[in-house]
């Protein structure tokens, strides 16, 4: 049966971490490691990983640079968090204005239709162009709102 752990594994790891493996460690522990399947695997990989950590050529940014980047990002995050309720308010206002405009159009629509019947230039031409006129009108109103909401502000 394969054991998945050994009571002396921590001891072996500690010796490897301290750099005493294999020459400077207790010979009895060396004997154990060669006989125990778990510890044999540990000493096959741990010294190399430890050396990799000790000797790898690592170029990390300076502490001050990391600190300042974090501070600047914290400021940007705080500004964004502070602006979030205002953006929601703006979106709600925009939606409310659009709703009011639609309600107004639907209320006035019968009267507009009645007026069109007596229009001198002929009702059918104007009725054909009405969707386009409405689309342009909504675009004129909505475009500045959309731009205002979409463009980030400091």
């Amino acid at each position, binding site marked *: 049966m394969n054991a998945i*752990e050994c009571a002396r594994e921590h001891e072996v790891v500690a010796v490897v971490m301290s750099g005493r493996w294999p020459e400077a460690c207790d010979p009895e522990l060396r004997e154990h490691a060669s006989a125990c399947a778990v510890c044999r695997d540990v000493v096959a*990989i741990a010294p190399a*990983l430890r*050396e*990799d950590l000790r000797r790898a050529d690592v170029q990390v940014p300076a502490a001050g640079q*990391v600190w300042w980047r974090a*501070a600047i990002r*914290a400021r940007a995050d705080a500004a964004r968090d502070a602006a979030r309720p205002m953006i929601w308010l703006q979106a709600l206002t925009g939606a409310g204005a659009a709703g009011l405009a639609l309600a107004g159009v639907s209320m006035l629509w019968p009267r507009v239709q009645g007026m069109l019947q007596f229009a001198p230039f002929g009702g059918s031409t104007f009725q054909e162009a009405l969707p386009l006129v409405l689309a342009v009108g909504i675009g004129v109103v909505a475009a500045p709102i959309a731009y205002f909401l979409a463009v980030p502000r400091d």
Partner: protein
Amino acid sequence: MAEWTLSDVERLSALNEADRTFQMSEEAFRSFYELTSRPVWLYLARITGDPRLADDLLQEAYYRFLRTTTRFESDDHRRNYLFRIATNLAHDNRRRSRFTAVPVDEAESVVVAESESADQVARRLDVTRAMSQLKPRERSLLWLAYAQGASHEEIAATMGLKRSSMKTLLFRARRHLVAALGSTPAKAGRS
């Protein structure tokens, strides 16, 4: 009288924000960073297999660490918490982008000391190559256990695993690495 530029105002504002939201002073951060940045970067580079990604994740890990509201009981707790953030970032990134690990150029990253024998260098190269064949979680486990020397409790806390399942996972990871070591080109060449 000194002139205030926008940059000065921004810097001052960032400094105030840092004082308000960061859990440690700049001075304390500098000492903590000096102790931890190298092992954390190497850990990220080894588990992602991408040194450039490790650069980005390192900055993000320290940012999240600075903004945490967790109260730390000891330096070890603080360090383990940072490793936990790094682990989560690496795993989140993998899930999000499904990156394919680019094996680290071992020849570049293995620095040879005069005191090291050719055999020791080759062994380290073998282990680095073999590690790149393992699953990221296995790499994390092995790196924490045998490069950092973390205890089973610390590894379980760092990786969000139960201690009982962690032992089995560590055992499997170890077996996989030993098996992969048997098939690395350098090893095959020597034998």
